């Protein structure tokens, strides 16, 4: 959808949020 709108550098994060957390990187609370 974003690429259709003209954005050329769009990449999904491998593993999603779980992959980021599993790698031990910081997260912030959004509650």
């Amino acid at each position: 959808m974003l690429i259709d709108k003209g954005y050329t550098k769009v990449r999904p994060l491998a593993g999603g949020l779980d992959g980021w957390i599993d790698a031990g990187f910081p997260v912030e609370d959004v509650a």
Partner: protein
Amino acid sequence: MIHLVHYVLVYGVSLIFINVLLEQLGAPVPAVPALIVAGALSRDGKMSSTNILLAALAASLVADYMWFLLGRRYGYRILRTLCRISLSPDSCVRDTEARFERWGLKSLLIAKFIPGFSTVAPPLAGSSGSGTLAFVFYDGIGALIWAGAAVAAGRAFHRAIDRLLAALENLGGWALVVIGSLLVVLIAVKWAQRLHFLKQLRLARIEPRELKAMFDRGELPIVLDVRTPGARKHNPRAIPNAILAHMDDVATQLGDLAPHTEVVLYCT
């Protein structure tokens, strides 16, 4: 000579049960063709429509209830495992969540008609804390609608299907070779498509360590959290400075951002 129809008639209901069970468990074995053939045979009075539907219903409930329990026990992790073997892991998780959040358990009524959603919907129902009785009710009706549609199609086109069965029977033992070969080719083609798609997807993705390195270098890509509200409620954390976006109007939320801006998006 193998009397194909004879064996179908003798073991038909058991075959339907096993076929539907395997498909609903996630095996790449389509059950609709068997249901259509069974429907055609029922139109000729050779099988009972009621028994066919009951077999399909029982198999669906057994498989779906197992996924439901796994979803209840392991939550989103079982959903991610299921989606990992689908064609598009990211959109699989997000799309099924969105569909389920929009329709709730009623989505089970049409789940079996939507590729990919059929196997994912039951564990999603389990992980969302749905009640067992309500799940069995909607899932059972959904299974009956799905199997009923296939059986009705078989009954409507029974003459063409009878001719096909007669042709297969004339092939004798080769009929099994033909059917088996077609099944192997079908699975091989699907598997090759999946591998090709996953390879493309891997090339287009960014690894967590790569994104972290960008942050550390002071590069600030736009990070979009495109999880559904339910997923955010389940895990109320996000990557620092990520924009909480909705996939339907994410382009609007980005506003007049330059087209060459680096955008990273993530879901569950």
